[in-house]
């Protein structure tokens, strides 16, 4: 029950925060609140806090592999010289 109200409070805060401008921190705040909410759901609604070690290991692995996928792909895109839109051929080419 407490968790439920914490989640509703989180939703309210994130909507209110979205209408304020924190510059480049907007996305950090929005995703920070989302992550806090997701953590509450996993720990309490999904009982991860009271689960065996093996289950907890599986959860940590999921987050870890997701982090690898995001970090490596994004660093690949960040370090490429080419602009993404230039990889797509201009419209004139496929009209011919």
């Amino acid at each position, binding site marked *: 029950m407490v968790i439920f109200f914490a989640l509703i409070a989180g939703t309210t805060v994130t909507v209110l925060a979205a209408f304020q401008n924190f510059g480049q921190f*907007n996305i950090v705040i929005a995703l920070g609140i989302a992550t806090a909410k997701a953590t509450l759901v996993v720990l309490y609604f999904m009982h991860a806090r009271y689960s065996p070690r093996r289950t907890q290991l599986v959860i940590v692995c*999921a987050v870890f592999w*997701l982090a690898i996928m995001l970090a490596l792909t994004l660093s690949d895109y960040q370090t490429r010289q080419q602009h*993404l839109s230039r990889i797509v051929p201009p419209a004139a080419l496929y009209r011919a």
Partner: protein
Amino acid sequence: MWIFLVTEVLFFGGMFLTYTINRHQYFTAFGIGSNTLDIKLGTINTGVLILSSLTMAMAVWSAQVGKKGLVTGFLIATLALGTVFLGIKVVEYKQKFDHHLIPGHGFDVWYQVDNTKPETEMGKKLLEDEREELHKATLSDPDIQSHAQLYFSLYFAMTGLHALHMIVGAGLLIWLIKLSMRGRFTPQYNTPVEIVGLYWHFVDIVWIYLFPLLYLIDRHR
């Protein structure tokens, strides 16, 4: 079940990754697209889904302590809330059709601004602001029509996939309700309730991330 959820995390993770890369590339068009979404419906839907996660957690708890009547009740409540969520989603999709925001031939980010007839002074001012925003956006991104379509393609793919998971979850819930009405769940045997519970909470978590990323990214202007 947890292993299956790990594969699901990576499945949805791929879509979030695609979204992030494209948003980084075309942030003006994505902002314009995001601001056309109905924030009221989105927020209500977030609340509905969190509430359904609560009733699901209560159903699991009732099954574990052996309160058979409560299990059925909470499962029906969860199913009802899930259906409300999907119903609101249908209303939102309908709006997108009405506003010509479905990627394809009829797509036009200008449609809504050009075809709304505001009745109040307030509405008139809001419309002017929107027109101004669109003009500015077009100046910084001349190909905004196709980049906004990219946003809506991702919007429909991500929320559509999420809705598909909700429909599967609703089917599982109907099955659980049938079993539960026959009194099958006891403190010794309640694994099906627990596993469907895990799945339901996972779908809730996906929405917790979808909501700020799709609805809230550019509201501060």
